[in-house]
């Protein structure tokens, strides 16, 4: 079979592009090098829906950000992914930093951001009492929000799969050959797929993927960002996402609530050699603590439950690369999608679709496309009476497996069954939050492994943490 379109990379851009293309009568496949979607930057980023005050006017980033905000809120609603418009605050500390607030305000106006306001430090502290007393001027962006980036990716990919696209895991594209009318994409495993058009959404690997096609005119600079995630006991510390104006002291260290009720601080920004470099460093951790305490001094870092690092894909030009390849007809790049990529993802997916159409792909809408996805968190949000009735019909939901987050066996089975099904412990964690709480899986991991093994019909020894090579057990006694 020859696919009409192959999408390389199942991050948020690839998943959202797959969903967009699933509207049409096309044969589409989504190729992912790892065991799950959202393996790269889409797994570990700030989860911010940016207002659009930041990108330089006239750039693709500015255009996609402004177009993207409302599209993202709508898609999140259709996909039942929590997305909260909590607003953001960009803080200046003293007179020297205040001009930057005014400059961002002006830039926001040019970009078309609505409802921007400049607040004095005291006005801001009335809205956000834990804000540092040193904050003197604030840009308030009420249209900004927060979303869980990997949940959005999982939902978008799942919706695309439900609408007929094919998902290939552990398909690391290592070769691309042009045959008559199509590209033959070869995976490291030896597996191949053929497709007439290819979309390169390979994130930090997108320059390498471009090179496989003989298109090597951009190069990605991987930049690592380290974060600290705090217990839900800290989640109410701030309501808004608190940024600092870019300064010598730090760029973009934020303090933000998450949609799940935790508190997130970070990221650092360090150039790294490899996209694989998602290491946590003591220096990074200290930087995050020190700089976030500058905005919100009351954060209790004793309540850190985990730290993580994500690699963002930047390009030296600083802008997104969303274009049809000049050298390789039929290849479209959506590359160098760093911030505000998450905010822009739906707008980018639509732009990619237009580019494919421009390159000759015929877009014929399906008669029965369904852009909604059932709420995977419905059970968690039921009240006791509703839960009781539901458990009586579905007893697995009454057996709590993850005690910290209160996740039931039924929800874990769903995570394995519902596209894109979880195939490992970390994938279950991202779908259900089982293992994401205070004990970090200490109690529930053996149960989660057993359930995965049962659902997949494999021995427990074959259950992995995050795909091939990451086995948890070394055998039976």
């Amino acid at each position, binding site marked *: 079979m020859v696919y009409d379109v192959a999408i390389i990379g199942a991050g948020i851009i690839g998943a959202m592009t797959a969903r967009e293309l699933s509207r049409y009568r096309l044969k589409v496949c989504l190729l992912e090098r790892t065991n799950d979607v959202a393996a790269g930057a889409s797994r570990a980023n700030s989860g911010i829906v940016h207002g659009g005050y930041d990108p330089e006017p006239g750039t693709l980033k500015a255009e996609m950000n402004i177009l993207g905000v409302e599209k993202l809120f709508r898609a999140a609603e259709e996909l039942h992914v929590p997305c909260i418009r909590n607003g953001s605050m960009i803080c200046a500390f003293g007179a020297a930093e205040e001009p930057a607030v005014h400059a961002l305000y002006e830039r926001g106006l040019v970009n078309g951001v609505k409802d921007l306001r400049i607040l004095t430090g005291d006005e801001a502290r009335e809205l956000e009492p834990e804000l540092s007393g040193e904050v003197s001027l604030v840009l308030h962006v009420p249209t900004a929000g927060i979303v869980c980036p990997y949940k959005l990716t999982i939902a978008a990919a799942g919706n695309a799969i439900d609408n007929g696209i094919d998902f290939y895991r552990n398909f690391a594209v290592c070769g691309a050959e042009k045959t008559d009318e199509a590209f033959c994409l070869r995976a490291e495993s030896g597996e191949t797929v053929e497709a007439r058009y290819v979309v390169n959404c390979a994130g930090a690997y997108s320059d390498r993927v471009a090179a496989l096609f003989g298109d090597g005119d951009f190069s990605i600079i991987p930049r690592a960002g380290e974060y600290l995630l705090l217990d839900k006991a800290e989640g109410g510390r701030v309501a808004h996402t608190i940024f600092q104006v870019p300064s010598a002291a730090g760029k973009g260290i934020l303090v933000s609530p998450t949609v799940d009720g935790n508190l997130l601080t970070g990221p650092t920004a360090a150039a790294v050699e490899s996209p694989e470099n998602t290491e946590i460093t003591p220096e990074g951790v200290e930087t995050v603590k020190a700089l976030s305490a500058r905005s919100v001094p009351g954060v209790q870092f004793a309540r850190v439950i985990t*730290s993580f690092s994500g690699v963002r894909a930047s390009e030296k030009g600083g802008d997104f690369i969303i274009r049809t390849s000049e050298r390789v007809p039929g290849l479209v790049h959506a590359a160098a999608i760093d911030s505000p990529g998450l905010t822009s993802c739906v707008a980018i997916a639509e732009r990619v679709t237009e580019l494919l159409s421009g390159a000759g792909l015929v877009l014929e809408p399906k008669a029965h496309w369904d852009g909604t996805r059932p709420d995977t968190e419905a059970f968690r949000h039921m009240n006791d009476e509703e839960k009781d009735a539901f458990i009586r019909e579905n007893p697995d939901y*009454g057996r709590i497996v993850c*005690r*910290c987050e209160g996740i039931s066996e039924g929800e874990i089975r769903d995570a394995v069954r519902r596209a894109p099904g979880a195939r490992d412990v970390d994938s279950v964690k991202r779908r259900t939050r089982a293992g994401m709480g205070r*004990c970090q899986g200490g109690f529930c991991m*053996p149960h989660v492994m057993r359930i995965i093994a049962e659902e997949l019909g494999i021995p427990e020894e074959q259950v992995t943490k995050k795909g091939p090579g990451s086995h948890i*057990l070394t055998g*039976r006694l």
Partner: protein
Amino acid sequence: MTEKHDIVIVGGGPAGLAAAVAAYDAGVTDVVIIDREEAPGGVLRQCIHNGFGLHKLGRELTGPEYAAVYAAEAVKRGIRILRETMVTAVSPDREVTACSREGILKIEAGAVILAMGCRERSRGALNIGGTRPAGIFSAGTAQRLINCEGYMVGKKAVILGSGDIGLIMARRLTLEGAKVEAVCELMSYSGGLTRNIVQCLEDFDIPLYLSTTVKEIHGRDRLTGVTVVAVDESRRPVPGTERYIECDTLLLSCGLIPENELSLAAGIPLDTITGGALVDERRETEIPGIFACGNVLQVHDLVDYVSDEAELAGRSAAAFVRGEISQEKTVTVSAEKGIRYCLPQRVHTDAGKTELYMRVAAPAERVKIVARDGERVLLEANRRRVAPGEMEKITLTPEMISGAEEIRVSLEAWK
């Protein structure tokens, strides 16, 4: 579905079982234990090593055997144990909400005893640098996988933390054919019992590196090694002392944290040091009718003391149900120099003989534990050797307590 019971016990581990039996024997027979696991016994079910029960039962048992003794007592009395049932909420007016395959159960309780136990500190809370491969387990998780599920977790291991679980697991891994390369301890002394250092490490020539921690984790998919580093007195890494140890497994045994999420949600004030509720001499929290015992109250090193504490809580809950409540004022008990915490944190002035449990801040020899009321010495107890890993206790008489204004406990040199 709403039920009514005199006493509801949250947790069917050693604390919950002993509390239930004691409450029953004190005359309150309508006792229900709610347990999340498929069988009672709590963490003892995976603690297959011996060393339990010497104080309490006068013989040396393994964990499952010790648990079975108390489970049998509960069964003999016909005490109901709800299995695979998770308590999701306890309200200040003692309504308990639980969840099981049968649905949501609500119980209006005459008294509630919290006995949820504790959890292990996770990697995230430790902030160890490096990658996030498979092969990193908290020691208790590995213990469960090996002893209850029958799986092996690795071939070459490093263990961070020399608390008892870490030591026990060093031996367990060795017996099952793994090589334990090192046990690293951040502090300058081990937090484990001496017998465990001898029988789990020295017997098998496993090196214990004190004042040493794991600085970095290596490996992408499965752990390939760790970098360990020596630390100074303020527990900061000493540059230049880094050493790479090849291993596929890292066990973390870095402290236990009482699992008090239910208590917090119920509005029960906690002690910032113990991580458990603030209680009086009867183990009643600051919310009337809600009691706490076992590792959810303070992390114990001997299950025997858990049983003692739980029996006290069980008897107290029974007294509460019968309306026997002290009308006297309470005086605070506070830990001072050399003592990290002291429990209970308050006592009624009409209290009977009261045991004060405490942990010292650092190892010391030839010291005395001194209890004072203001400047007046109530009690002095000499100790040849004390260590933070081994809980200490002293006993106050009713006479010492009745006139007291404020009880302060400290550790002083033995003259």
